[in-house]
């Protein structure tokens, strides 16, 4: 087992290297660089551009060099823990991200818990009472949840929250706390603002989770061992909880590969609409203004989490389902 984990970890290195190269190339694809955008913006607003500063930045960050050496410059920086400099925010990338990361993780972990907590009982109920009115209702709601673009749901819910409940709209906290240091009052404000975003971001995830869990559980319920167990007189609930439910939990685990990165920015769109202080809007903005180190670092962070998530879910699946063997056999 240990050697397997070690091998997988080693394999992550070339994968991440490839990803970093591709990401860097993609981000470099648009013509021009951030400094050009920056200068033209300043000129357009009639401000003086300090040419020395621009030249300094260009040299400091190697923007005058060919793409390849820029890439290696960035890469070696990462290996030293320096993720580059955000031109737009005039801060090291790590500081820009670090400001938003805690909120981000808080928001998305809450969403994750929401998805798990809501989808499990519903899927369980739907599978056990297949084709009941409740099952149909939940299926319909689930399909609608999958099909509605969630940024629109966000808008409507925000409006409803404002019109009916009088909760201030947008953001993850009341405006007066945005630059304030962390305090209990700020924490409270964040918690009251968390509801709507969590509901919105969680909807489609919950819907797809319910569908898969229900399908899995239904498959398991038809298997012979369930019939055998019932025939032998095992109490129904004990039988259900002990075997089929345990087997149908696979999507919970298998999804970690996709869920871990969403802990960082699964919610970009909603975050843009609701002006949440998370990484999603930051990435959109960085991509548009070619703030390349910032954009690159965020995408790399997520790629890292995907790779890590896949490994974790493989390991947990093996732990949950003894029929899965990791060594040998896995490749075929």
């Amino acid at each position, binding site marked *: 087992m240990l050697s397997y984990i070690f091998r997988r970890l080693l394999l992550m290195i070339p*994968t991440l290297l*490839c*990803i970093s190269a*591709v*990401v860097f190339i*993609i*981000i470099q*694809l*648009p*013509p021009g660089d951030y400094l050009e955008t920056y200068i033209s913006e300043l000129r357009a607003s009639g401000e003086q551009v300090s040419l020395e500063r621009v030249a300094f930045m260009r040299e400091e960050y190697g923007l005058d060099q060919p793409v390849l050496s820029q890439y290696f410059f960035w890469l070696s920086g990462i290996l030293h823990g320096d993720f580059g400099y955000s031109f737009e925010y005039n801060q090291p990338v790590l500081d820009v991200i670090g400001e938003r990361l805690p909120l981000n993780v808080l928001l998305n972990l809450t969403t994750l818990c929401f998805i798990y907590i809501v989808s499990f009982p519903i899927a369980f109920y739907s599978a056990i009472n297949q084709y009941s009115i409740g099952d149909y209702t939940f299926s319909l709601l689930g*399909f*609608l949840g*999958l*099909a*509605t*673009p969630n*940024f*629109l749901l966000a*808008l*409507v819910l*925000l*409006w409803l929250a*404002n*019109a009916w409940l009088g909760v201030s*709209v*947008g953001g993850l906290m009341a405006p007066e706390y945005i630059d304030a240091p962390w305090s209990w009052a700020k924490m409270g404000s964040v918690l009251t603002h968390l509801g709507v975003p969590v509901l919105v971001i969680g909807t489609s995830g919950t819907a797809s989770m319910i569908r898969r869990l229900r399908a899995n559980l239904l498959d398991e319920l038809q298997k012979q061992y369930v019939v055998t167990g019932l025939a032998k007189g095992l109490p129904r609930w004990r039988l259900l909880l002990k075997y089929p439910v345990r087997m149908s939990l696979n999507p919970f685990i298998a999804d970690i590969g996709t869920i871990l*990165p969403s802990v960082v*920015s*699964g919610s*970009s*769109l909603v975050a*843009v*609409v609701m002006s949440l202080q998370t990484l999603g809007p930051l*990435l*959109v903005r960085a*991509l*548009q203004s070619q703030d390349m180190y910032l*954009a690159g670092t*965020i*995408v790399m962070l*997520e*790629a890292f*989490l*995907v*790779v890590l998530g*896949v490994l974790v879910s493989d390991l947990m699946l093996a732990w949950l389902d003894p029929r899965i063997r990791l060594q040998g056999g896995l490749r075929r």
Partner: protein
Amino acid sequence: MNGAPMTQGSQPPLPAGDEDLGHWVSNEPFDATYQPALSPAQQRYYSAPQWKLIWWKFRRHRLAVVSAGLLAVLYFIVIFAEMLAPYAPDSRNSQYIYAPPQRIHLFHEGEFLGPFVYGDHRKLDMEVLRRIYTENTAKPHPVRFFCQGDKYRFWGMVEARFHVICPAKDGVFYPLGTDRLGRDQLSRILYGARVSLTVGLVGIVLSMTLGILIGGAAGYYGGWADLITQRIIELLRSFPELPLWMALSAALPATWSPVTTFFGITIIFALLDWTGLARAVRSKLLSLREEDFAMAASLMGGRPHRIIYRHLVPNFMSHLIASATLSIPSMILGETALSFLGLGLRPPAVSWGVLLVEAQNLNVVALYPWLMLPVVPVVLAVLAFNFLGDGLRDAADPYH
């Protein structure tokens, strides 16, 4: 009808009642070649080609059939958008800015007139700076059918003025309201269908081609080809999806024409989507190439190319189509999302995502809720593709 149970030709009636039968043996001579006669219905069933079996099974899935019908209507709109829309997508009416949807009436003062709308009293409320529209029930404006209206180029080629439906000569017809420039919402939704519904189709055709080509090569040749493809697939799958979409679309030059941007975006979708299909193709091929008929084909001198595409792929084509159908919705939603963020299509292109950009802030939801209407066709199309895909998958599965 191989393997059908062999039964006796005709059985003598069993003794009635509860009396013990003992060891009972029929006196009829044993006929080893006997097969029960098939009813015509059975005959039809057993000799039907595969596509017919799939069709019969698919027909039973009501929701899927309804969805297929709905999609047919939607794609009809895609083809004839110019004729079906009452206005051109960019024709503005500065008198009707943010006009709410007009009600369509049939009776005017108790008299049947056919569908018509009333004119409006327009007034600017200076206190809240909002235009107020009230119905002017004095004069009806009957809607005209099969008429001459705004000029357009059909599919960008043939110039024409024919519309199926037009406003009254001196009136307007905005059944779904207008946007901030006074453009007809209904016409824009109809035109938007063109981009939004084809982005998924073109994307899926591209990604299926890629998936079958690459997955086919990997699965049939195995060895190095397989190893390299597997690594590439793993690599592509470890990219976070949405950020990669965003990064790639941000890389599309802003100077491109709407059509080029559109193709750029479909190619992006296809480039990231083929991996799932390639995997499915590969694993199917790995098992199918061991079958006898594949061996026979290669012994008869079939080249790999022919064996793969004439003999192996048709075996699971229906599955591929079903799973492709299921991945169209994500492309439609993806287009909506990217355009909404300003990374996808940009005006003057019209797509449902571009239309939804107008509905980006709370004012719209509170004051002009009809600007959110483009979401209705999005939801309908996504649901229809989902149900259709479900139905196809069930129908294509021979083991169900």
